[in-house]
Protein backbone atom coordinates (compact mmCIF):
# COMPACT_ATOMS: atom_id res chain seq x y z
CA UNK A 1 0.00 0.00 0.00
CA UNK A 2 1.23 3.42 -0.91
CA UNK A 3 2.15 5.76 1.89
CA UNK A 4 -0.04 8.82 2.21
CA UNK A 5 1.12 11.64 -0.05
CA UNK A 6 3.40 13.87 1.96
CA UNK A 7 2.00 17.35 2.17
CA UNK A 8 5.44 18.76 1.57
CA UNK A 9 8.72 17.73 0.16
CA UNK A 10 11.32 20.09 1.53
CA UNK A 11 15.07 19.86 1.75
CA UNK A 12 17.79 22.26 2.80
CA UNK A 13 20.56 23.38 0.55
CA UNK A 14 23.38 25.88 0.76
CA UNK A 15 24.20 28.51 -1.80
CA UNK A 16 27.83 29.05 -0.99
CA UNK A 17 30.74 30.55 -2.87
CA UNK A 18 33.84 32.52 -2.03
CA UNK A 19 33.85 35.40 -4.48
CA UNK A 20 37.20 36.69 -5.69
CA UNK A 21 36.83 40.42 -6.05
CA UNK A 22 39.38 42.59 -7.79
CA UNK A 23 39.39 45.93 -6.04
CA UNK A 24 40.69 48.43 -8.55
CA UNK A 25 43.17 51.12 -7.43
CA UNK A 26 40.98 53.14 -5.05
CA UNK A 27 39.49 50.35 -2.97
CA UNK A 28 42.84 48.54 -3.20
CA UNK A 29 44.64 51.56 -1.75
CA UNK A 30 42.13 51.91 1.06
CA UNK A 31 42.52 48.24 1.97
CA UNK A 32 46.34 48.37 1.66
CA UNK A 33 46.39 51.30 4.07
CA UNK A 34 43.97 49.53 6.39
CA UNK A 35 46.44 46.65 6.53
CA UNK A 36 49.01 49.18 7.79
CA UNK A 37 46.58 50.40 10.42
CA UNK A 38 45.68 53.63 8.62
CA UNK A 39 42.35 54.83 7.28
CA UNK A 40 42.12 56.91 4.11
CA UNK A 41 39.34 58.66 2.32
CA UNK A 42 39.02 60.29 -1.08
CA UNK A 43 38.58 64.02 -1.58
CA UNK A 44 35.95 65.38 -3.95
CA UNK A 45 36.57 68.44 -6.14
CA UNK A 46 34.49 70.55 -3.74
CA UNK A 47 36.60 69.39 -0.81
CA UNK A 48 34.46 66.75 0.89
CA UNK A 49 36.29 63.72 2.25
CA UNK A 50 34.51 60.41 1.67
CA UNK A 51 35.37 57.44 3.92
CA UNK A 52 35.84 54.60 3.18
CA UNK A 53 37.64 55.87 0.08
CA UNK A 54 34.91 56.17 -2.55
CA UNK A 55 35.69 55.54 -6.20
CA UNK A 56 33.10 58.02 -7.42
CA UNK A 57 31.51 61.13 -5.98
CA UNK A 58 27.84 60.33 -5.37
CA UNK A 59 26.95 63.97 -6.11
CA UNK A 60 28.91 64.78 -9.26
CA UNK A 61 29.75 61.23 -10.47
CA UNK A 62 33.38 62.31 -10.93
CA UNK A 63 36.08 59.69 -10.45
CA UNK A 64 38.01 60.32 -7.23
CA UNK A 65 41.77 59.88 -7.08
CA UNK A 66 43.05 62.13 -4.29
CA UNK A 67 43.56 60.29 -1.01
CA UNK A 68 43.34 61.89 2.43
CA UNK A 69 44.33 60.36 5.75
CA UNK A 70 41.68 60.44 8.43
CA UNK A 71 41.70 59.44 12.07
CA UNK A 72 40.80 56.07 13.49
CA UNK A 73 38.59 57.79 16.02
CA UNK A 74 35.29 59.43 15.39
CA UNK A 75 31.71 60.04 16.39
CA UNK A 76 28.72 57.69 16.18
CA UNK A 77 26.06 59.47 14.16
CA UNK A 78 23.45 56.74 14.50
CA UNK A 79 23.35 53.14 15.67
CA UNK A 80 21.22 50.05 16.03
CA UNK A 81 21.48 47.52 18.81
CA UNK A 82 21.45 43.88 17.76
CA UNK A 83 20.02 41.95 20.68
CA UNK A 84 20.15 38.52 19.05
CA UNK A 85 22.88 38.25 16.43
CA UNK A 86 22.04 36.12 13.38
CA UNK A 87 24.47 33.50 12.13
CA UNK A 88 26.11 35.83 9.59
CA UNK A 89 26.97 38.50 12.13
CA UNK A 90 30.64 38.65 13.02
CA UNK A 91 29.92 39.26 16.71
CA UNK A 92 27.92 36.59 18.42
CA UNK A 93 26.97 38.73 21.41
CA UNK A 94 24.83 41.88 21.59
CA UNK A 95 26.52 44.66 19.63
CA UNK A 96 25.77 47.77 17.61
CA UNK A 97 25.90 48.51 13.93
CA UNK A 98 26.73 52.19 13.63
CA UNK A 99 27.47 54.96 11.22
CA UNK A 100 30.70 56.52 12.41
CA UNK A 101 32.05 59.84 11.18
CA UNK A 102 35.82 59.61 11.57
CA UNK A 103 37.86 62.67 12.44
CA UNK A 104 38.62 64.41 9.18
CA UNK A 105 35.81 62.77 7.20
CA UNK A 106 32.67 64.44 5.89
CA UNK A 107 30.54 61.32 5.72
CA UNK A 108 30.03 58.43 8.09
CA UNK A 109 31.12 54.86 7.50
CA UNK A 110 29.30 51.72 8.48
CA UNK A 111 30.89 49.46 11.03
CA UNK A 112 30.22 47.76 14.36
CA UNK A 113 30.61 49.04 17.90
CA UNK A 114 31.32 46.79 20.88
CA UNK A 115 30.01 48.72 23.84
CA UNK A 116 29.00 45.83 26.08
CA UNK A 117 25.45 46.98 26.61
CA UNK A 118 22.82 49.07 24.90
CA UNK A 119 22.85 51.56 27.73
CA UNK A 120 26.49 52.36 26.94
CA UNK A 121 25.56 53.47 23.43
CA UNK A 122 24.42 56.91 22.36
CA UNK A 123 24.60 59.00 19.24
CA UNK A 124 27.43 61.51 19.48
CA UNK A 125 29.64 59.18 21.50
CA UNK A 126 33.30 58.99 20.53
CA UNK A 127 34.66 55.64 19.41
CA UNK A 128 38.02 54.32 18.34
CA UNK A 129 38.92 51.50 15.95
CA UNK A 130 39.87 48.18 17.53
CA UNK A 131 42.42 46.85 15.09
CA UNK A 132 42.95 43.19 14.32
CA UNK A 133 46.38 41.92 15.36
CA UNK A 134 46.86 40.26 12.01
CA UNK A 135 45.64 42.43 9.18
CA UNK A 136 45.18 41.22 5.61
CA UNK A 137 43.62 44.13 3.77
CA UNK A 138 39.94 43.82 4.50
CA UNK A 139 37.31 46.05 6.06
CA UNK A 140 37.39 43.47 8.88
CA UNK A 141 40.97 44.53 9.70
CA UNK A 142 39.02 46.82 11.97
CA UNK A 143 37.37 44.27 14.25
CA UNK A 144 34.95 46.90 15.43
CA UNK A 145 34.94 50.28 17.17
CA UNK A 146 34.89 50.73 20.92
CA UNK A 147 34.03 53.66 23.18
CA UNK A 148 36.98 55.95 23.97
Amino acid at each position, binding site marked *: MAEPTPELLT*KSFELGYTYTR*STGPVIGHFLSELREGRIVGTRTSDGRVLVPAA*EYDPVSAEALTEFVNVGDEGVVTTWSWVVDPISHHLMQKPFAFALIQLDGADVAMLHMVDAGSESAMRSGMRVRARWAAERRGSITDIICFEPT
Partner: protein
Amino acid sequence: MGNRVAVVGIGQTKHKSKHKDVSIAGLVRQAAERALEDAGCTWKDIDALILGKAPDMFEGVVMPELYLTDALGGNGKPVLRVHTAGSVGGSTAVVAANYVQSGAFRRVLTVSFEKQSESNATWALSPRMPFVPHVNAGAGGFFAPYMRLYMERYGVPAHIGCMVAVKDRLNALKNPYAHLQIPDISLEMVQQSPMLWEPIRFLESCPSSDGACALVLADEQHAARSPNPPAWILGTSTRADGSMYAGKDNIHPASLIACAKDVYSKAGITDPRRQIDVAELYVPFSWYEPMYLETLGLCGEGEGWKLVESGVTALDGDVPINASGGVLSSNPIGASGMLRFGEAALQVRGMAGAHQVEGARLAIGHAFGGAHSYYAMWAVSADKP
Protein backbone atom coordinates in the same frame (compact mmCIF):
# COMPACT_ATOMS: atom_id res chain seq x y z
CA MET B 1 5.90 53.49 -32.30
CA GLY B 2 6.38 56.71 -30.42
CA ASN B 3 9.09 59.32 -30.84
CA ARG B 4 12.13 58.68 -32.97
CA VAL B 5 15.18 57.41 -31.15
CA ALA B 6 18.79 56.94 -32.18
CA VAL B 7 21.93 55.39 -30.79
CA VAL B 8 24.41 58.26 -30.43
CA GLY B 9 26.99 56.73 -28.12
CA ILE B 10 28.51 53.27 -27.84
CA GLY B 11 31.11 52.14 -25.33
CA GLN B 12 32.54 48.79 -24.41
CA THR B 13 35.43 47.45 -22.43
CA LYS B 14 38.04 45.09 -23.68
CA HIS B 15 36.53 41.70 -22.97
CA LYS B 16 38.76 39.21 -21.22
CA SER B 17 38.79 36.36 -18.71
CA LYS B 18 39.63 38.52 -15.75
CA HIS B 19 39.64 42.29 -15.41
CA LYS B 20 41.91 42.16 -12.38
CA ASP B 21 42.61 45.89 -12.42
CA VAL B 22 39.13 47.22 -11.70
CA SER B 23 36.23 46.85 -9.31
CA ILE B 24 32.78 46.01 -10.65
CA ALA B 25 32.03 49.74 -10.66
CA GLY B 26 35.30 50.43 -12.45
CA LEU B 27 34.39 47.97 -15.18
CA VAL B 28 30.95 49.39 -15.97
CA ARG B 29 32.33 52.90 -15.67
CA GLN B 30 34.82 52.30 -18.51
CA ALA B 31 32.06 51.34 -20.92
CA ALA B 32 29.79 54.16 -19.74
CA GLU B 33 32.47 56.84 -20.09
CA ARG B 34 33.28 55.68 -23.60
CA ALA B 35 29.61 55.82 -24.58
CA LEU B 36 29.25 59.33 -23.13
CA GLU B 37 32.36 60.49 -24.94
CA ASP B 38 31.10 59.08 -28.23
CA ALA B 39 27.79 60.88 -27.65
CA GLY B 40 29.48 64.14 -26.64
CA CYS B 41 27.59 64.01 -23.33
CA THR B 42 28.38 64.46 -19.67
CA TRP B 43 26.72 62.69 -16.75
CA LYS B 44 24.43 65.70 -16.29
CA ASP B 45 22.97 65.29 -19.77
CA ILE B 46 21.56 61.86 -18.99
CA ASP B 47 17.89 61.70 -17.96
CA ALA B 48 17.66 58.05 -16.92
CA LEU B 49 19.80 54.97 -16.37
CA ILE B 50 18.72 51.48 -17.43
CA LEU B 51 20.90 48.62 -16.22
CA GLY B 52 20.88 45.11 -17.63
CA LYS B 53 22.47 42.12 -16.00
CA ALA B 54 22.23 38.33 -16.10
CA PRO B 55 21.95 36.49 -12.76
CA ASP B 56 23.07 38.39 -9.68
CA MET B 57 24.70 35.16 -8.48
CA PHE B 58 27.58 35.62 -10.93
CA GLU B 59 28.94 38.47 -8.81
CA GLY B 60 27.03 37.80 -5.61
CA VAL B 61 25.62 41.32 -5.68
CA VAL B 62 21.84 41.53 -5.39
CA MET B 63 20.30 44.27 -7.56
CA PRO B 64 23.70 45.81 -8.34
CA GLU B 65 22.13 49.04 -9.60
CA LEU B 66 21.78 50.02 -5.94
CA TYR B 67 25.54 49.93 -5.46
CA LEU B 68 26.50 51.01 -9.00
CA THR B 69 24.41 54.16 -9.05
CA ASP B 70 27.34 56.28 -7.80
CA ALA B 71 29.61 55.04 -10.59
CA LEU B 72 26.97 55.56 -13.26
CA GLY B 73 25.73 59.00 -12.30
CA GLY B 74 22.36 57.52 -11.35
CA ASN B 75 21.70 59.53 -8.21
CA GLY B 76 18.64 61.72 -8.48
CA LYS B 77 17.63 59.95 -11.66
CA PRO B 78 15.26 57.15 -12.63
CA VAL B 79 17.14 53.84 -12.56
CA LEU B 80 15.64 50.60 -13.83
CA ARG B 81 17.11 47.11 -13.78
CA VAL B 82 16.20 44.48 -16.38
CA HIS B 83 16.88 40.73 -16.21
CA THR B 84 15.63 38.48 -19.01
CA ALA B 85 18.28 35.72 -18.85
CA GLY B 86 20.90 35.72 -21.64
CA SER B 87 18.88 38.08 -23.81
CA VAL B 88 19.07 40.76 -21.12
CA GLY B 89 21.57 43.01 -22.88
CA GLY B 90 19.20 43.22 -25.83
CA SER B 91 15.98 43.57 -23.89
CA THR B 92 17.58 46.26 -21.72
CA ALA B 93 18.42 48.27 -24.84
CA VAL B 94 14.78 47.84 -25.91
CA VAL B 95 13.57 49.26 -22.59
CA ALA B 96 16.04 52.13 -22.91
CA ALA B 97 14.67 52.88 -26.39
CA ASN B 98 11.16 52.91 -24.89
CA TYR B 99 12.23 55.60 -22.40
CA VAL B 100 13.01 57.91 -25.31
CA GLN B 101 10.15 56.73 -27.54
CA SER B 102 7.71 57.57 -24.73
CA GLY B 103 8.57 61.25 -25.15
CA ALA B 104 9.30 61.63 -21.44
CA PHE B 105 13.09 61.36 -21.72
CA ARG B 106 15.56 62.92 -24.14
CA ARG B 107 18.83 61.12 -23.52
CA VAL B 108 19.27 57.92 -21.57
CA LEU B 109 22.23 55.76 -20.68
CA THR B 110 21.90 52.00 -20.72
CA VAL B 111 24.62 49.76 -19.34
CA SER B 112 25.08 46.02 -19.08
CA PHE B 113 27.92 43.95 -17.73
CA GLU B 114 29.23 40.71 -16.34
CA LYS B 115 32.23 40.36 -14.11
CA GLN B 116 32.22 36.63 -14.52
CA SER B 117 35.61 36.14 -12.89
CA GLU B 118 34.24 37.13 -9.47
CA SER B 119 32.77 33.64 -9.39
CA ASN B 120 32.55 30.82 -11.87
CA ALA B 121 29.85 30.47 -14.52
CA THR B 122 29.67 26.71 -14.21
CA TRP B 123 29.19 27.02 -10.48
CA ALA B 124 26.56 29.73 -10.77
CA LEU B 125 24.58 27.85 -13.39
CA SER B 126 24.70 24.41 -11.78
CA PRO B 127 21.44 23.62 -10.05
CA ARG B 128 22.04 22.80 -6.43
CA MET B 129 18.42 22.70 -5.48
CA PRO B 130 17.14 19.30 -4.45
CA PHE B 131 14.42 17.42 -6.34
CA VAL B 132 15.49 18.61 -9.80
CA PRO B 133 13.70 16.01 -11.90
CA HIS B 134 16.08 15.92 -14.86
CA VAL B 135 19.46 14.37 -15.32
CA ASN B 136 22.04 17.11 -14.91
CA ALA B 137 24.00 17.34 -18.15
CA GLY B 138 25.17 20.95 -17.84
CA ALA B 139 24.08 23.90 -19.98
CA GLY B 140 25.22 22.30 -23.23
CA GLY B 141 23.35 19.15 -22.31
CA PHE B 142 20.13 21.01 -22.90
CA PHE B 143 21.14 22.69 -26.17
CA ALA B 144 23.30 20.08 -27.91
CA PRO B 145 20.55 17.52 -28.64
CA TYR B 146 18.72 20.08 -30.78
CA MET B 147 21.85 20.91 -32.77
CA ARG B 148 22.35 17.23 -33.38
CA LEU B 149 18.75 16.94 -34.44
CA TYR B 150 19.20 19.89 -36.81
CA MET B 151 22.20 18.18 -38.41
CA GLU B 152 20.34 14.92 -38.81
CA ARG B 153 17.11 16.41 -40.07
CA TYR B 154 18.73 18.49 -42.80
CA GLY B 155 21.83 16.41 -43.52
CA VAL B 156 24.22 19.11 -42.34
CA PRO B 157 27.92 18.18 -42.54
CA ALA B 158 29.92 18.34 -39.32
CA HIS B 159 32.39 20.97 -40.54
CA ILE B 160 29.72 23.71 -40.70
CA GLY B 161 29.91 24.40 -36.97
CA CYS B 162 33.70 24.52 -37.23
CA MET B 163 33.49 26.97 -40.15
CA VAL B 164 31.38 29.37 -38.07
CA ALA B 165 33.86 29.04 -35.22
CA VAL B 166 36.77 29.93 -37.52
CA LYS B 167 34.94 32.81 -39.20
CA ASP B 168 33.97 34.48 -35.92
CA ARG B 169 37.50 34.14 -34.50
CA LEU B 170 38.95 35.61 -37.70
CA ASN B 171 36.56 38.54 -37.32
CA ALA B 172 37.61 38.91 -33.69
CA LEU B 173 41.17 39.52 -34.85
CA LYS B 174 39.86 42.74 -36.40
CA ASN B 175 38.10 43.81 -33.20
CA PRO B 176 40.44 45.07 -30.48
CA TYR B 177 37.71 44.67 -27.83
CA ALA B 178 37.15 40.97 -28.57
CA HIS B 179 38.22 38.53 -25.87
CA LEU B 180 39.52 35.58 -27.88
CA GLN B 181 42.40 36.49 -30.17
CA ILE B 182 43.60 33.31 -31.91
CA PRO B 183 45.81 34.41 -34.81
CA ASP B 184 46.39 30.86 -36.09
CA ILE B 185 42.75 29.78 -35.89
CA SER B 186 41.98 27.13 -38.50
CA LEU B 187 39.40 24.51 -39.34
CA GLU B 188 41.82 21.82 -38.15
CA MET B 189 42.34 23.54 -34.83
CA VAL B 190 38.58 23.66 -34.20
CA GLN B 191 38.09 20.09 -35.38
CA GLN B 192 40.84 18.89 -33.08
CA SER B 193 39.57 20.75 -30.05
CA PRO B 194 37.96 18.54 -27.40
CA MET B 195 34.37 17.42 -27.79
CA LEU B 196 32.16 18.78 -24.99
CA TRP B 197 28.59 17.86 -25.79
CA GLU B 198 28.22 16.26 -29.21
CA PRO B 199 28.21 17.95 -31.67
CA ILE B 200 29.68 20.92 -29.74
CA ARG B 201 33.46 21.13 -29.57
CA PHE B 202 35.40 23.37 -27.22
CA LEU B 203 36.25 25.90 -29.92
CA GLU B 204 32.65 25.89 -31.12
CA SER B 205 31.54 27.38 -27.81
CA CYS B 206 31.78 30.82 -26.25
CA PRO B 207 34.35 31.85 -23.66
CA SER B 208 33.52 33.20 -20.22
CA SER B 209 34.38 36.90 -20.09
CA ASP B 210 34.48 40.00 -17.94
CA GLY B 211 33.15 42.97 -19.84
CA ALA B 212 30.64 45.75 -20.12
CA CYS B 213 28.74 47.62 -22.79
CA ALA B 214 26.98 50.98 -22.66
CA LEU B 215 24.80 52.90 -25.08
CA VAL B 216 23.52 56.46 -25.12
CA LEU B 217 20.13 56.75 -26.81
CA ALA B 218 18.75 60.14 -27.81
CA ASP B 219 15.65 61.72 -29.23
CA GLU B 220 15.62 63.34 -32.67
CA GLN B 221 16.66 66.78 -31.48
CA HIS B 222 19.68 65.54 -29.55
CA ALA B 223 20.62 63.01 -32.20
CA ALA B 224 20.90 65.88 -34.67
CA ARG B 225 23.39 67.60 -32.35
CA SER B 226 25.51 64.56 -31.57
CA PRO B 227 29.13 64.72 -32.78
CA ASN B 228 29.11 61.31 -34.49
CA PRO B 229 26.56 59.86 -36.90
CA PRO B 230 23.46 58.42 -35.21
CA ALA B 231 22.10 54.93 -35.76
CA TRP B 232 18.33 55.30 -36.05
CA ILE B 233 16.29 52.60 -34.38
CA LEU B 234 13.71 51.42 -36.88
CA GLY B 235 12.06 48.93 -34.60
CA THR B 236 12.53 46.85 -31.47
CA SER B 237 10.89 43.67 -30.28
CA THR B 238 11.01 41.06 -27.53
CA ARG B 239 9.31 37.66 -27.36
CA ALA B 240 9.27 34.89 -24.80
CA ASP B 241 7.66 31.56 -24.16
CA GLY B 242 7.82 28.88 -21.49
CA SER B 243 10.97 26.80 -21.16
CA MET B 244 9.21 23.55 -21.92
CA TYR B 245 5.83 22.71 -23.33
CA ALA B 246 4.46 20.11 -25.71
CA GLY B 247 5.16 20.89 -29.34
CA LYS B 248 7.85 23.51 -28.69
CA ASP B 249 10.15 23.75 -31.71
CA ASN B 250 13.69 24.03 -30.38
CA ILE B 251 15.30 24.28 -33.82
CA HIS B 252 13.23 27.12 -35.22
CA PRO B 253 11.76 28.57 -32.02
CA ALA B 254 8.35 30.19 -32.34
CA SER B 255 9.40 33.06 -30.08
CA LEU B 256 12.28 34.02 -32.38
CA ILE B 257 10.10 33.74 -35.47
CA ALA B 258 7.56 36.08 -33.86
CA CYS B 259 10.27 38.47 -32.67
CA ALA B 260 11.81 38.74 -36.13
CA LYS B 261 8.45 39.16 -37.82
CA ASP B 262 7.61 42.02 -35.47
CA VAL B 263 10.88 43.86 -35.88
CA TYR B 264 10.89 43.39 -39.68
CA SER B 265 7.38 44.78 -39.92
CA LYS B 266 8.33 47.84 -37.84
CA ALA B 267 11.50 48.37 -39.88
CA GLY B 268 9.88 47.80 -43.28
CA ILE B 269 12.02 44.74 -43.93
CA THR B 270 10.24 42.52 -46.44
CA ASP B 271 13.24 40.77 -47.97
CA PRO B 272 15.70 40.29 -45.12
CA ARG B 273 18.38 38.60 -47.21
CA ARG B 274 18.54 41.52 -49.60
CA GLN B 275 17.82 44.40 -47.23
CA ILE B 276 19.93 43.52 -44.18
CA ASP B 277 23.54 44.56 -44.72
CA VAL B 278 24.99 43.03 -41.58
CA ALA B 279 23.64 41.17 -38.57
CA GLU B 280 24.96 40.65 -35.07
CA LEU B 281 23.36 37.47 -33.75
CA TYR B 282 23.74 35.96 -30.31
CA VAL B 283 25.59 32.74 -31.19
CA PRO B 284 27.03 31.12 -28.01
CA PHE B 285 27.53 27.81 -29.82
CA SER B 286 28.52 27.92 -33.47
CA TRP B 287 25.61 25.73 -34.58
CA TYR B 288 23.17 28.50 -33.81
CA GLU B 289 24.34 30.55 -36.79
CA PRO B 290 22.88 28.29 -39.51
CA MET B 291 19.78 27.64 -37.41
CA TYR B 292 19.17 31.38 -36.90
CA LEU B 293 19.67 32.17 -40.58
CA GLU B 294 16.67 29.98 -41.26
CA THR B 295 14.56 31.18 -38.36
CA LEU B 296 15.26 34.81 -39.24
CA GLY B 297 14.14 34.26 -42.81
CA LEU B 298 17.54 34.93 -44.38
CA CYS B 299 17.11 31.62 -46.23
CA GLY B 300 14.73 28.70 -46.39
CA GLU B 301 14.39 25.89 -43.85
CA GLY B 302 17.38 23.56 -43.98
CA GLU B 303 19.37 26.02 -46.09
CA GLY B 304 21.24 27.94 -43.39
CA TRP B 305 24.29 25.72 -43.43
CA LYS B 306 24.70 26.26 -47.16
CA LEU B 307 24.99 30.01 -46.60
CA VAL B 308 27.71 29.36 -44.05
CA GLU B 309 29.50 26.94 -46.34
CA SER B 310 29.44 29.31 -49.31
CA GLY B 311 30.84 32.20 -47.28
CA VAL B 312 27.73 34.39 -47.41
CA THR B 313 28.07 35.12 -43.69
CA ALA B 314 31.79 35.91 -43.74
CA LEU B 315 32.99 39.49 -43.37
CA ASP B 316 33.24 39.81 -47.15
CA GLY B 317 30.05 37.85 -47.83
CA ASP B 318 26.76 39.42 -48.83
CA VAL B 319 25.21 39.07 -45.32
CA PRO B 320 28.09 39.21 -42.84
CA ILE B 321 27.11 37.72 -39.48
CA ASN B 322 28.98 38.79 -36.34
CA ALA B 323 31.61 40.97 -37.94
CA SER B 324 32.69 41.78 -34.37
CA GLY B 325 33.57 38.17 -33.61
CA GLY B 326 30.28 37.74 -31.77
CA VAL B 327 29.53 35.84 -28.59
CA LEU B 328 31.87 33.05 -29.73
CA SER B 329 34.73 35.50 -29.23
CA SER B 330 33.50 37.50 -26.19
CA ASN B 331 30.84 36.50 -23.69
CA PRO B 332 30.30 38.75 -20.69
CA ILE B 333 26.82 37.20 -20.41
CA GLY B 334 24.88 40.19 -19.10
CA ALA B 335 26.43 42.45 -21.75
CA SER B 336 26.53 39.99 -24.67
CA GLY B 337 23.11 40.96 -25.98
CA MET B 338 23.78 44.69 -25.74
CA LEU B 339 27.08 44.16 -27.55
CA ARG B 340 25.13 42.65 -30.45
CA PHE B 341 22.80 45.65 -30.47
CA GLY B 342 25.69 48.10 -30.12
CA GLU B 343 27.83 46.43 -32.79
CA ALA B 344 24.88 46.57 -35.21
CA ALA B 345 24.63 50.30 -34.51
CA LEU B 346 28.41 50.78 -34.91
CA GLN B 347 28.16 49.25 -38.38
CA VAL B 348 25.47 51.59 -39.69
CA ARG B 349 27.31 54.54 -38.13
CA GLY B 350 30.38 53.47 -40.12
CA MET B 351 32.41 53.37 -36.90
CA ALA B 352 33.29 49.68 -36.63
CA GLY B 353 36.92 50.17 -37.60
CA ALA B 354 38.72 47.14 -39.00
CA HIS B 355 35.59 44.99 -38.86
CA GLN B 356 33.46 47.58 -40.65
CA VAL B 357 31.22 46.13 -43.34
CA GLU B 358 31.61 48.41 -46.30
CA GLY B 359 28.54 50.56 -46.93
CA ALA B 360 26.37 49.06 -44.20
CA ARG B 361 23.11 51.02 -43.97
CA LEU B 362 20.73 48.58 -42.28
CA ALA B 363 21.71 46.17 -39.51
CA ILE B 364 19.99 43.96 -36.99
CA GLY B 365 21.03 43.11 -33.46
CA HIS B 366 19.71 39.98 -31.80
CA ALA B 367 19.90 38.44 -28.34
CA PHE B 368 18.84 35.09 -26.97
CA GLY B 369 18.26 33.71 -23.50
CA GLY B 370 16.85 30.81 -21.54
CA ALA B 371 15.78 27.52 -23.06
CA HIS B 372 15.16 28.98 -26.55
CA SER B 373 12.66 31.15 -24.73
CA TYR B 374 13.76 34.77 -24.59
CA TYR B 375 14.56 36.81 -27.68
CA ALA B 376 15.18 40.50 -28.25
CA MET B 377 15.94 42.24 -31.53
CA TRP B 378 16.31 45.64 -33.03
CA ALA B 379 16.87 47.02 -36.52
CA VAL B 380 19.05 50.11 -36.92
CA SER B 381 19.70 52.26 -39.92
CA ALA B 382 21.98 55.02 -41.09
CA ASP B 383 18.90 56.66 -42.55
CA LYS B 384 16.37 58.50 -40.46
CA PRO B 385 12.98 56.71 -40.63
